[in-house]
């Protein structure tokens, strides 16, 4: 029986939100300045408290058109004429400013998204600065990227990003696009627009030429108008597989180049010879990092049968120490679920898990009175036919299955329409390489999990999408002459 161990109580250690100045309302960032939209507005709230943070503009199709025109003009008159070495300097400037203002961005991200400050501060923001710095260096070296001596930019990129890593996804999209010589129109998710809007200020501070980066806010219809705009040359989308398929349909018959970073249902495979202490940390980080709002989350745990009891006991013991609560508290491990809609989806699929006969266990933790929360949860006794083993929950919910042989582990791991990531835990080197080569997934973490780096290509097989972000491959996605 697992019980919460007696430990010292933590004193609250909230990060001050005084560092960030949130305006009461925001316009659209088009052609280097904030402008009013032609449509309505919507509110963005803190998912931890449900307080309204700001009023944000809902961009109409006409606004999208204005933004695309600004991007086109900037591409033709300024950005495509700049030598790569000069584009690089702007990107280096942005990288430096993002590092300088990283605490401000981290606080704002945790407020708007609900993720713990220790993640926004120690993972998201460092990666953002690094992403811009990495791609800045590519801008004047495109001829060395393996795409011919002088690869050309595509033109205007329309980019639509999700709510789980708002500013990090912005960096993943904007940095390679600009380095390759494109201009962009980017739409952040409707529940997390604030850091993208603050990034607009960074563009101004860096004196980026007007129109090179345009930020428009709105929901699905705004994103659709952007993706379908005839003058967009490149579509980059991160989000759900359903929307990814709709985008793939909408660009059919055009010459638009597309990268799609979609859903996942990653297997995290633990063999009996695994370094179990490390594996437990990897399992916990794999599914509870960012409340499980991670497309590459290790949401299916496959445990070799003979260590199953041991692994589950250790896992529950570790989960009982996770601290859920105020995202701005530096002690917090598990923040708020991003939205009421997402919480409802997590609750619904968990209820399906109960109904289909899996056994639920949740870490004992107090749930705050306001906001959207879900305790870290595992389901045991899960079979491959269960919906919680097949559908992406996108929350802090782990489905546990077992296996006996490596062949069975591979068969179960690959038995999904997704193919974004996978994890393998074993001390046997030859087994790692054998598993890694048989797993049909774009990223395989062996004896680690959820690691990201701008030099490392990231992206999926099968219905997890196509194209890669990060590294030389991520650059190629924004240049002519590459199929990626």
């Amino acid at each position, binding site marked *: 029986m697992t019980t919460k161990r007696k430990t010292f109580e933590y004193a609250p250690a909230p990060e001050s939100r005084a560092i960030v100045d949130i305006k009461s309302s925001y316009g659209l960032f088009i052609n280097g300045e904030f402008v009013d939209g032609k449509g309505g507005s919507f509110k963005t709230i803190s998912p931890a408290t449900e307080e309204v943070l700001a009023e944000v503009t809902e961009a109409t199709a006409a606004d999208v058109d204005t933004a695309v025109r600004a991007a086109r003009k900037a591409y033709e008159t300024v950005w495509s004429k700049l030598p790569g070495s000069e584009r690089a300097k702007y990107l280096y400037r942005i990288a430096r400013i993002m590092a300088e203002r990283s605490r401000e961005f981290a606080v704002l991200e945790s407020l708007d998204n609900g993720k713990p400050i220790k993640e926004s501060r120690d993972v998201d923001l460092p990666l953002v600065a690094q992403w811009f710095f990495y791609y800045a260096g590519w801008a004047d070296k495109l001829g060395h990227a393996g795409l011919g001596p002088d690869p050309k930019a595509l033109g205007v990129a329309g980019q639509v990003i999700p709510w789980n890593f708002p500013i990090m996804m912005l960096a993943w999209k904007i940095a390679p696009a600009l380095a390759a010589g494109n201009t962009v129109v980017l739409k952040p998710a409707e529940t997390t627009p604030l850091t993208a809007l603050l990034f607009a200020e960074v563009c101004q501070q860096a004196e980026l030429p007007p129109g090179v980066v345009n930020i428009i806010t709105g929901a699905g219809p705004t994103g659709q108008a952007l993706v379908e705009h005839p003058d967009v040359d490149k579509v980059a989308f991160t989000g759900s597989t359903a929307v990814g398929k709709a985008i793939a349909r909408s660009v059919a018959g055009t010459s638009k180049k597309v990268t799609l970073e979609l859903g996942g249902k990653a297997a995290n495979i633990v063999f009996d010879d695994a370094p179990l202490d490390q594996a437990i940390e990897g399992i916990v980080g794999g599914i509870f990092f960012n409340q499980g709002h991670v497309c590459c989350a290790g949401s299916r745990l496959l445990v070799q049968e003979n260590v199953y009891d041991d692994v589950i006991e250790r896992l529950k013991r570790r989960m009982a120490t996770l601290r859920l609560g105020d995202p701005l508290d530096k002690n917090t491990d598990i923040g708020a679920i991003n939205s009421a809609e997402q919480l409802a989806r997590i609750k619904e699929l968990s209820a399906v898990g109960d109904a289909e006969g899996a056994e639920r266990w949740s870490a004992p933790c107090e749930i705050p009175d306001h906001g959207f929360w879900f305790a870290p949860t595992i389901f045991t006794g899960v079979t491959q036919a269960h919906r919680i083993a097949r559908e992406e929950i996108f929350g802090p919910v782990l489905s546990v299955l077992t296996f006996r042989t490596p062949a069975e582990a591979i068969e179960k791991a690959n038995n999904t329409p997704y193919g974004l990531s996978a994890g393998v835990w074993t001390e046997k080197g030859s087994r790692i390489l054998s598993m890694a080569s048989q797993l049909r997934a774009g990223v395989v973490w062996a004896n680690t999990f959820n690691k990201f780096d701008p030099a490392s290509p990231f992206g999926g*097989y099968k219905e997890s999408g196509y194209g890669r972000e990060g*590294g030389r491959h991520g650059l190629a996605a924004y240049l002519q002459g590459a199929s990626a």
Partner: protein
Amino acid sequence: MTRIDVRKTHKLYINGAFPRSESGRTYEALDAKGDFIANMAKASRKDARDAVLAARKAFGGWSTRTPYNRGQVIYRIAEVMEGRRDQFIAEILAGGTPPKRVAPCVDASIDRVVWYAGWADKYVQVLGNANAVSGPFFNLSTPEPTGVVAIIAPEAPLLGLVSVIAPAIATGNTVVVIATENHPVPAVTLAEIMATSDVPAGVVNILTGSAAEIAPWLASHMDVNGIDLAGVTDPALATELEVAAAENLKRVLRAPSGPADWLAEPTLARLEAFVETKTVWHPIGV
């Protein structure tokens, strides 16, 4: 006395065998003057699905062959093609290609297969990367085959056909090919070469018939992972196929926007089109 020649029955090529269409249908292949050449099997939806099944079955074995071995097998295709050079020339001539273009086209076709054979054990080095990440991690990206690829072959009788098949199988994919409807005879000969060289059954499956009829079934087939629209000249059909392909997010290689010059030395684009980049991380420690 003049000998009566033995005519060939032109059939489909599925799973290493030569079945007639299960539908029992045929159509007439005609030469440039509109004269009868042969009755061709007219593949059906069921034939296309059988071919996908065969390609899927062959994928595991073919994709895990050593790259050196795949290169040898593809090189062997060129060797056998060389022995059938005169047959190809005669068939392409009969199809109506201007005589002075025929032999160069056949020679280029054989050379093209040799070119791609040589890529089988090299493209991983060119398209893959060792990634210098900022932490104590080994991190390597390598391209792997996408899976089962459907190909609508271009009109160019033999050169177009080998130019789309060879890159797809060089990287370890297995393919279902719809031969050009108007010049299908060289495709059947190529199928015989596949059957008599060392290409395992199911790696290459070749259908004759109407692309407009069969391609939509392949584009919407949930066990097909990629589709090459090289031979689709009707923009409405191309769009229809791309829309259908979105259902399981097939990798789509769009048709060239203008007439393709198949004689030009290829780029890596076709090798790159149907591979997936896999990145493996491992901590470095003691």
